[in-house]
C-alpha cells in the first residue's frame, strides 16, 4: 500500500502560485502590447481601404464621364452613385452635384469592407464643350437655293422660355464662298435674309474649315455621339419612362420647348450615319449628319447642326435655332424652301455645346480632402 504524504509544510506551493501570477502578469502585459500594436495596424489597413474606396469611387465617375453625362441635372441638383470594390475590398457612395453650367463636384465617401473606417473626398470636374464655331445662321460651301417663305436670320434669337445670357451681336445670315451660288425665288432684295451682313462672302471656306471643329474632326465628333442612328424617316419627340426622360429612345432628342419637363435638360449628340429624314416634332443638342438631311413637318431643332451632304427643307419645313453648317466636298445644292426658318441663337448653341460636353478634372486643384 502506497504511503500517503501527510507533511504539508514548505513554501513550494506559495512560490509556484507567486511565479504563476508573475508569469501571468508578464504574459498578459505582452499580450496587451501585442493587441495594441495589432489594433493600430488593423486601423491603418482599414483607413487605407476606406481611402482607396473613396478614390476609386470618385475616379470611376470621372473616367466614365461621357459626353453630356449629368447634363440633365439642374444647377444645385445632385445624383447619387455607389459601388463595391472588386474582391470586396471596400465600398463607396457619393453624389455628383452640378455647381454651374460647367462645374460639378463629385463627392465620395469610401468605407472599409466592414464599414468601420470612412474617408470623404471630392473631385472638381469641368466639362469641356465641343468647339463648333457658328459664324453665321447658315454657313455653306456649295450652292444655296432659297424659296417659299423661308427666312434666314443672323440676329441672335434666344429660344422662348430659356434662361440666356444677353444677346450677342448679329452674325451674317449666310456665309458662303461665292454669293453667286445663291438662288432665290420670292425673296426680292434678299428680304428673306437678315443679319450683319445679310450675306458674307468668305472665300476661305474650304473642305477643312467645314470638317474641322476646334480640336476635333467630324469623324471624331461622331465617335462622341451618344445617340447613334442610321438614317431613316423619323418623328422626333420627347419620351418618358414613368416620369423620367427616356434617353434610350433613339427618337427622343430632348424637350427644348418645355423647360420644366423631364427631358428639358437632355441634350444628346446625335449622329446619323446616312441620309436622314425628319418629320416633326422637336429636339435639341448637336446634330451631325453624315449624308443628306431632309426636314419637313415643322420640325424644330435647337443647337448646332452639321450636315455633310445636302440640307433640304420642304412643306411646312423646319426651324433651326442655333446655326447650320452644311459641309460637303461634293455639295450639290442646299435648298431652303417652304416656311423654313434658320435663326442664329448663341444661347441655343452654347447650351447645346455645354450640355453635350465630356467632363475632365479641373486643370488645377481638382482633388479635395473633405474630411
Amino acid at each position, binding site marked *: 500500500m502506497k504511503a500517503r504524504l501527510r507533511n504539508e509544510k514548505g513554501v513550494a506551493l506559495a512560490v509556484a502560485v507567486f511565479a504563476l501570477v508573475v508569469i501571468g502578469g508578464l504574459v498578459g502585459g505582452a499580450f496587451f502590447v501585442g493587441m495594441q500594436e495589432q489594433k493600430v495596424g488593423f486601423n491603418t489597413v482599414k483607413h487605407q481601404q476606406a481611402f482607396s474606396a473613396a478614390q476609386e469611387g470618385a475616379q470611376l465617375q470621372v473616367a466614365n464621364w461621357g459626353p453630356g453625362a449629368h447634363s440633365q441635372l439642374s444647377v444645385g441638383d445632385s445624383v447619387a452613385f455607389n459601388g463595391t470594390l472588386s474582391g470586396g475590398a471596400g465600398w463607396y457612395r457619393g453624389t455628383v452635384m452640378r*455647381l454651374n453650367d460647367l462645374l460639378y463636384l463629385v463627392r465620395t465617401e469610401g468605407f472599409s469592407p466592414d464599414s468601420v473606417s470612412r474617408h470623404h473626398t471630392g473631385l472638381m470636374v469641368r466639362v469641356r464643350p465641343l468647339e463648333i464655331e457658328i459664324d453665321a445662321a447658315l454657313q455653306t460651301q456649295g450652292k444655296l437655293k432659297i424659296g417659299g417663305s423661308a427666312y434666314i436670320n443672323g440676329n441672335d434669337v434666344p429660344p422662348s422660355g430659356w434662361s440666356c445670357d444677353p444677346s450677342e451681336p448679329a452674325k451674317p445670315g449666310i456665309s458662303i464662298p461665292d454669293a453667286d451660288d445663291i438662288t432665290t425665288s420670292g425673296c426680292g432684295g434678299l428680304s428673306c435674309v437678315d443679319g450683319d451682313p445679310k450675306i458674307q462672302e468668305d472665300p476661305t471656306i474650304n473642305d477643312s474649315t467645314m470638317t474641322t471643329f476646334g480640336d476635333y474632326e467630324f469623324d471624331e465628333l461622331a465617335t462622341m455621339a451618344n445617340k447613334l442612328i442610321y438614317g431613316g424617316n423619323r418623328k422626333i419627340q420627347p419620351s418618358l419612362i414613368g416620369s423620367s426622360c427616356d434617353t434610350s429612345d433613339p427618337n427622343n432628342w430632348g424637350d427644348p420647348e418645355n423647360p420644366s419637363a423631364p427631358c428639358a435638360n437632355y441634350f444628346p449628340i446625335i449622329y446619323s450615319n446616312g441620309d436622314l429624314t425628319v418629320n416633326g416634332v422637336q429636339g435639341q443638342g448637336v446634330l451631325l449628319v453624315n449624308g443628306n438631311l431632309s426636314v419637313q413637318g415643322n420640325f424644330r431643332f435647337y443647337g448646332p447642326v452639321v450636315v455633310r451632304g445636302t440640307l433640304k427643307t420642304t412643306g411646312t419645313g423646319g426651324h433651326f435655332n442655333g446655326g447650320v453648317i452644311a459641309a460637303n466636298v461634293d455639295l450639290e445644292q442646299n435648298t431652303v424652301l417652304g416656311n423654313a426658318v434658320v435663326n442664329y441663337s448663341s444661347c441655343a448653341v452654347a447650351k447645346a455645346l455645354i450640355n453635350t460636353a465630356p467632363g475632365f478634372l479641373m486643370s488645377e*486643384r481638382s482633388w479635395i480632402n473633405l474630411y
Partner: protein
Amino acid sequence: MISHPANPAHSARKGRAASGFTLIELLIGLVLTGLVAGSVYQVLLSNQRVYRVQTERVDLQGNVRAAVAMVPSELLELNAADTVDSDIVTLGDTLVTYKAMRNLFFVCQPPISAGATGTVVLWRNPSYGLRGIDSNRDSILIFAENDPSTRFDDYWVHANVSGTVATGTACPMSAPSLTVTLDNVYPVGSLAGVEEGAPLRSFEVVQLFTYPDLAGAFWMGSRVFGKSGGWGDVQPVLGPIANGGLRFTYFDANGVATTNRSAVARVGIQVIGRTNEPVKSTFGDIRYVVDTLTTHVALRNNTR
C-alpha cells in the same frame, strides 16, 4: 544539565525537539529560497526590460507611422504650380511652409469686384471642412472661369479675408449665406471672372519643422501664421525624433531635385523616429533606438 528520565513531561518535549529543523536544514532552505527568489527577480527584471523595449518600440513605430499618415495628407492637396502663386511658401531641408487647405465653399452669387478689394457671398450649405473661415488667419482661393468657351484662361484668384465673416440669408431663395470681405485680390480685378457656383477654398499658412524641447529631445512641430501676431505657438505634432530626424526633398515633374517652389511636383519626407528613453539593445548596451521611414507625396492638385 540535570536529567529527569522519570518525568513524562520532559520526555514529550524531547520528542518535539526531534521533529524541528536543524541549522543546516535552515541554511539550505534559505539558500534555496534565495536562489528561487533571485531567479524570479531576474526573470521579472528581464521581462520588465523586454516589456519596456516593446512599449518604446511600439511608441516609436506609432510615431513614424503617424508621420507618414499626417504629413502627406496635407501636402497631397497642394498646388505648387498654381498659375498665380505656389502653395509652397518656403522650402528647406528641414522645414516646409505651405498653404494648408481648410475648407470648401461655393459662391452663391457673382462677387462684387472693386479692383483689389471685393465681397463674395457663399452658400453655407453645402460646405465642407473641419472649421469655418477664420478671418484672423485665413486667406482664400476662388476659381475664376473667365471666358466659359475656353479652359485655358481659368485660374484661382488669391485674396485675403479682410473683415469679419458675416452669416445671413443673402443667397438665392434666402438660403443661409456667408458674406466675406476681401482685400489684396490678386490678380487685381480678377473677381470679375468668378461665376456663381465657383468653388472657394480657404487656407492658412502652416510651417512644419523640427524643434528641441527643454530636455533636449527633438520633435516635429507645426505653427500657423497669424495675420496680426506673426507665427503662433508651436504645436508638437509627433516625437521624439532624432536630431535632424525630419528632412524634406523636392522634385520637379521630371523627377529632378529642385529648389524652385513653383516647380515642385513631388515631396520626399524622411522621418527618423527615436524612442522616448534609452533601452537595452540586443547587444546588451543601453541606447536610444531609432527607426527611419521615407515616403514621397505627389502633389495631386498641380496644374496639368
